[in-house]
C-alpha cells in the first residue's frame, strides 16, 4: 500500500506573493516552478527535503470556472478552506522571534502543550500555519 505523503496542496491567491512569503519569509525552498501552459506548477518544501512538497495552487479556469474560483478565494480569505500546514522545528520560540522580525502575522504566541511547544500564523491569503517543537 502507500509508503509516503509526497504532495499536499493549498490554494494561494497570487503565486509570486506566495513565493515571497513561503520562501522569502518562512525559509522554504522551491522544489518546482514550471509553466505547464495551462497552469504554473509551483511547489515548495523544507530545504533538502524535496520528498515532501506543498503545491501552491492558484484557483482559476480551466480547472474551475471563474465564478467557482471566486468562491474559493472568498473562502481562503475567510480562513475557511482546508489550507492548513503544520511544521516541526527544533526551537519554537527562536523561530517565532525570527519570523516576527520578518513581519509574519501570528495568530498565537508560542504556548506549551502536552505534545510540545507550538504557535500559529496566517499566510498572506488566510491559510492557517502552525509549527511545533515536539516534546523531547
Amino acid at each position: 500500500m502507500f509508503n509516503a505523503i509526497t504532495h499536499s496542496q493549498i490554494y494561494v491567491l497570487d503565486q509570486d506573493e506566495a513565493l515571497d512569503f513561503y520562501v522569502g519569509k518562512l525559509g522554504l525552498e522551491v522544489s518546482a516552478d514550471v509553466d505547464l501552459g495551462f497552469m504554473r506548477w509551483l511547489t515548495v518544501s523544507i530545504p533538502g527535503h524535496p520528498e515532501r512538497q506543498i503545491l501552491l495552487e492558484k484557483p482559476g479556469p480551466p480547472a474551475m470556472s471563474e465564478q467557482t474560483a471566486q468562491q474559493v478565494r472568498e473562502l481562503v480569505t475567510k480562513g475557511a478552506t482546508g489550507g492548513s500546514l503544520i511544521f516541526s522545528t527544533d526551537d519554537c520560540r527562536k523561530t517565532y522571534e525570527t519570523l516576527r522580525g520578518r513581519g509574519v502575522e501570528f495568530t498565537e504566541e508560542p504556548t506549551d502543550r502536552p505534545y510540545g511547544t507550538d504557535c500559529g500564523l496566517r499566510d498572506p491569503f488566510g491559510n492557517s500555519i502552525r509549527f511545533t517543537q515536539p516534546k523531547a
Partner: protein
Amino acid sequence: MAVVGRAAEETNRRMLRARDAMDRGYAQPLDVPALARIAHVSPAHFTRTFRATFGETPHRYLQRRRVERAMFLLRESDRSVTDICFQVGFTSPGTFSRTFSAIVGHSPRTYRRRAAAADVPTCFTMAWTRPSA
C-alpha cells in the same frame, strides 16, 4: 465583477485578522472599536460586516471563544472556576456561569465532572470545540 471580488477578498481577510485577534487576545477586554481598528473599518461597519462574513456578531464569536477556552481549562487544569472565569476574560463570575450554562447546557462544575481530555493539535481542538449556537 473582478473588482467586486477582490474587494470581498480584502474585506474577508480583514475580518479574519480581527477574528484572529479575538482567538489570540480573548482574555483581554476587546471592544468593537479596538477590533474595528484592526480591520481598518468604522465600528458600525465592523459589526455588520463581521456578521455577514462569519454568520455571527463579533460579541458572540468572542463569547464562544472564551467559553471554549474555559472548557479547555476546566478539563485540563485544576484551577478554580472563579480563576478560570477571570483568566478567559469574563469580568464577573455570575455572567460567566450564566453564559457558560446557556451555551454549553451544563454549569462549569458539571461540565468539569463529565469532561475527558483529547490528544490532537490544539488548533483543531480550538476550531471544533468552540460551541455553536
